[in-house]
């Protein structure tokens, strides 16, 4: 099967203000097939978020090669990266990252503006996207008028609005209670069944067991890629508080 993500010998070095270097990724190799639903696990500080951000083109590796759908990302300009983020990738941040002064609807419609969709169409798509995550009754709420689970769903709706083929989620259930978390996993399950590639960072074994594969990271490298024997299934009911 075609690999939508191919990362080879990726390193990421953060230089702190004092000149101290932190090696977050140390020659990481990873291949992800199109349509795969995989969890990324590993100890705290092992480089999971760093990896996800590089895969999402939000940051660039210090060295190594990253091919996204056959295209070498390190050769792209800033603006081309913006375009890739907009067209191919839906990124779901752990801390949601919603515009505080915009409504749920405006937040979801935002990425569509940067691809030139007309205002009317943006609203239609954003409305559908919010309906999809079960938030049709909260469209005009601002982020500070929403619960954590609702904010997470706005963030997911925003990632879905551009209809990306890759969804990257950094601890999407990390801030949620287990019941709400299961609802989100149910939503991911549906999205996976639609054929999207999903990578999800998580700390919880039972969350990871909803995926097809678990990629284990340690010290900035892939330690192990493991098939999930007995996949858990979650169902999305739309009944998130």
């Amino acid at each position, binding site marked *: 099967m075609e690999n939508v993500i191919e990362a080879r010998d990726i390193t990421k070095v953060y230089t702190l203000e004092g000149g101290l270097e932190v090696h977050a990724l140390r020659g990481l190799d990873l291949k992800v097939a199109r349509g795969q639903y995989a969890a990324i696990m590993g100890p705290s500080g092992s480089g999971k978020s760093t990896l996800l*951000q590089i895969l999402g083109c*939000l*940051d*660039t590796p210090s060295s190594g090669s990253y091919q996204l759908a056959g295209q070498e990302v390190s050769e792209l300009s*800033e*603006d081309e990266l*913006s*375009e890739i*983020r*907009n*067209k191919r990738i839906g*990124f779901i*941040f752990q801390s949601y*990252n919603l*515009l*505080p*002064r*915009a409504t749920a609807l*405006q937040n979801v419609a*935002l*990425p569509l*503006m*940067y*691809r*030139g969709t007309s*205002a009317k169409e943006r609203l239609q798509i954003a409305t559908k996207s919010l309906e999809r995550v079960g938030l049709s009754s909260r469209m005009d709420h601002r982020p500070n008028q929403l619960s954590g689970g609702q904010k997470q769903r706005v963030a997911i709706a*925003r990632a879905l609005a*551009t209809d990306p083929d890759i969804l990257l989620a950094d601890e999407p259930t990390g801030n949620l209670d287990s019941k709400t978390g299961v609802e989100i996993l149910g939503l991911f399950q549906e999205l996976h069944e639609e054929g999207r590639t999903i990578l999800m960072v998580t700390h919880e074994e039972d969350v990871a067991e909803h995926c097809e594969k678990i990629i284990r990271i340690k010290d900035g490298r892939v330690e192990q890629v493991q098939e999930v024997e007995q996949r858990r299934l979650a169902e999305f009911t739309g009944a998130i508080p």
Partner: protein
Amino acid sequence: MLLENVKTALEALFGNRLRSVLTLLGVVIGVFAVTTTISMGAIATAGITSELQDFGSQSLFVVVDFDNPQAQRFNDDDIEALSRLPIDILQQQSTGGEIRFEEESSSISLNGTTANAAEVDRTLELDRGRYFSQADEKNAAPVIVLSSDASQELFGDTVDPVGKEVAVSFGDGSRVFYTVIGVKKRIGGALGAFANDVSGDIPLTTFYNDVPGVTRGEYDFLPITIDLDRNANDIEAQVRAILDRRRGSDTYTIQTIEGALSLFNTITRILQAVLGGIGAISLLVGGIGILNIMLVSVTERTREIGLRKALGAKRGTILQQFLIEAVVLTVIGGLIGVLLSIGVLYLIVAAVPFLDRVIISPAVILMAFGVSVITGVIFGVWPASRAANLSPIEALRYE
């Protein structure tokens, strides 16, 4: 995309109203202060200059130069010689004295002059009563026309001075009584407002009879009024030619309003520089206000920029949004500032009598506008440009 970005910019401005209003305020203060102070300087200068010109153009004041021991007082022959020019010359003598009415007294400058002073002196107008006549002059009548200030000093607002008898005493202790027959109007505008003129006019004949130690037909100074259709400089040159021939060039001086004006212009230029300085400081204060707001909101805005980039915004699009925001704010602020300034200037001009018209130079508006737009744009776009250079994740992580 541009239209979309205008909408985005406006949404951002409305989204954070407090920030927008505070930034706006910085621009308003700067533009208002500069436009108002500099224009005020120009308006005051124009007002006072036109006042001085009304008052003193077409007139010369020839004074004996007593620093020169050779200098002699002017005499009737000098007046005779000058009178073939298109000018009017007042025969006038002055002295100091003390004037009294019942309990009120004041020192006064007493002028002996001729009855035609009322026509020759273009600034002379009567508030009440009449000026003395040829007959009064012929009879050396004991009558006096008081200046507005003199009347105020002696009679206040309640008593009608006309017909009252006042006593004037001189340095040697002699004392005479005059009947008040008229009161002059206060000289209009700026000069009248600033000058304190306690004086009285009596017929020159009366003056010669009453005032001790004056010689008939000799004058310390000659007030000359030039016919309105003549060039003042030409006439001045002709006056000089005649007096030089008759008396020598270093025995007298001629004072003109141009001389006073050039001194005055120096003063107003300093005044305008000071006002301009105050304006510049206000502009700076406004600018710092803008900078402050921008810096305070930079964290939030850096995150916003990071997020927009993460969602696919290009650097140019983001800069355009911030540029539009800054331009909209500064232009609206600038307009408010200019309109406010024009309003205030009209109020001031309406309230202050000797300022007669509002002068707002387009250059000043342009300058004030330009500086505040530039500050707004620099302070608005520069942090945005820095933030847009970060990778989306760095910008999102910004604290």
